[in-house]
């Protein structure tokens, strides 16, 4: 089976999964006997959770396939009892059956609508890297992990491997090079990725843990990771690299559960897209032991 065929094969499982979700019928799926399913970090039986409430699929769809690990990722919009929501999905295929199902449901109506207004994913997520320039899996993961390492306790002094035109989309919202209408002391969203990191603004992200680099697509230069961003809440203001101090408004312990997709070209991050939802501070993913879940070490 060629790699392209494997990609189509893996993506066909996403299509089957989504169709079964809408009909609320997991028995339509080729599930492994030992299939494991989590939704927002909780282990459920297939048929529960979003399986009860999905009413239709949305128009936004983005797939990433890993022909080596037989895993496939998907970001897309759905309707949950008619309300738009965003779904991040990871399937692991073994012996033509689905062995692992990991989902994050972001119940962010405005975010889902923003994605649909975009119409289609950023084209770089679908473009192949020329064979001579393809990086190894390890090299791709290393670059993606530099993003988390640079962001965790961000001090503005790290190595930040971004292209100049790199942008980040979080639940459909462009959070870089996109001036906000708010009257913030620092309009961080107006800056590019690298400039953002160089400010040292993100120091309030106190731990980026349980870094699982689960889907790597060498052909397209893509890495999909599932991680948690912990905010201990004890950094209400940040002293920036330029010496000024700005409030950041994070004054309670909370955690983002995130599926984050990186496009990497020539050892630089070219585009980022994330699906995220708030979960209890310190929550486990359901795919890691307790110590792994609290560690900031990269795993794949």
């Amino acid at each position, binding site marked *: 089976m060629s790699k392209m065929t494997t990609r189509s094969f893996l993506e066909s499982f996403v299509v089957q999964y989504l169709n079964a979700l809408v009909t609320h019928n997991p028995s339509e799926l080729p599930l492994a006997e030992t299939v494991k399913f989590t*939704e927002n970090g*909780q282990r459920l039986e297939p048929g529960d959770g979003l399986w009860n409430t999905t009413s239709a699929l949305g128009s936004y769809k983005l797939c990433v396939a890993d022909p080596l690990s037989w895993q496939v990722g998907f970001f897309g919009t759905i309707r949950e009892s008619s309300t738009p929501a965003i779904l991040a999905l990871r399937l692991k295929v073994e012996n033509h059956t689905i062995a692992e199902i990991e989902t994050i449901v972001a119940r962010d109506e405005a975010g889902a609508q923003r994605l649909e207004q975009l119409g289609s994913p950023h084209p770089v997520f679908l473009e192949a890297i020329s064979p001579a320039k393809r990086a190894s899996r390890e090299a791709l993961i290393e670059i993606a992990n530099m993003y988390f390492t640079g962001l965790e306790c961000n001090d503005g002094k790290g190595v930040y491997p971004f292209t100049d035109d790199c942008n980040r989309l979080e639940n459909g919202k462009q959070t870089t090079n996109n001036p906000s209408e708010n009257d913030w002391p620092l309009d961080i969203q107006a800056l590019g990725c690298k400039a953002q990191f160089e400010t040292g603004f993100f120091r309030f992200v106190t731990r980026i843990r349980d870094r699982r680099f689960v889907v790597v697509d060498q052909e397209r230069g893509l890495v999909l990771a599932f991680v948690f961003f912990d905010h201990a*809440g004890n950094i209400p203001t940040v002293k920036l690299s330029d010496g000024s101090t700005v409030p950041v408004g994070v004054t309670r312990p909370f955690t983002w559960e995130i599926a984050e997709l990186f496009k990497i070209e020539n050892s630089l991050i070219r585009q980022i897209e994330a699906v995220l939802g708030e*979960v*209890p501070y*310190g929550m486990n993913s359901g795919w890691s032991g307790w110590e792994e879940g609290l560690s900031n070490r990269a795993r794949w």
Partner: protein
Amino acid sequence: MQKKFFPTTGQCDRAGLLALIDDYLKALVMKDPAGLPLAEAVKYTENTAAIPVGDGLWVAASKGPTAFRIYAADVPAGQVGFFGVMEEFGEPIILAVRLKVVGGKITEIEHVVARRISETEMRNLVKPRPGFLQAVPSSERVSRQEMLQIANSYFESVEQCNGDLAPFAVDTERHENGKQTTTNKPPDPASFGSSEREQQKLAMGRIDALGVRDQMNCRILSYITRIQPRRLLIVDEEMGLVYGFPMFIHRGNVRTIQIIGVPGVDTVPMLFGPFNLQAGEIFKIRGGQIHEIEANGCLLPYGSRSGWDE
């Protein structure tokens, strides 16, 4: 911290348990667990997540409990609970705490933290209702087992939408995250507009004006699929308190609640997706009836475990 808070050997009597939890709260605000008699294998969860002692509210606590403090001590079970208001980075929170003590050492710490408390809710959180502070006269006490059955019957009543399954007193009043959710003053229809949103507020006002029994029977809680596990862990016979840490499970499949027996209210929309809610919930039982209910809760991903399930 040099102070040794608690004797590390011997049986914990009532006074010892109550002193321990006060010392615990002091240590929490000082952000220093070192002086506490923690067992080597102590387990700590906050809003169900297992995190190291010293993390979570141990980082965030900025001021100790206000006058709103409810305690429950259970000597036979070696457990003690606190439910009260304190501050996290200067903002009020409602904290439910449970400590388990074995041989003088704290082996289990459970926090349920409710955050973002509104000013309206804070008005009910100045001091506890008198029932939570008064011991139950011997003549009005019931057995430990009966207290557990009564508290459990409340959850049955919720699950089955049947107000006759639990012994509610005429004056039973429930507060959830500070909000009084039963026996409120009936709303004046003239003060509501004609928009759909206003009319929904009026409908909820009518439901919140009902007593607990009638409210159960009107089926407003039919969106709650299950309450499991119920974890009624602290029984304070002297004060007539049962303190539980129930997990409320909502499948999200009830999108329209059909209301029964409330004039002017036929249906209530329920637009939440699947979700869980971890609560800390205290029942005051006197004369074999539930009088006061005080609860806090935090929303969780659907299917969340308590962190203490087998």
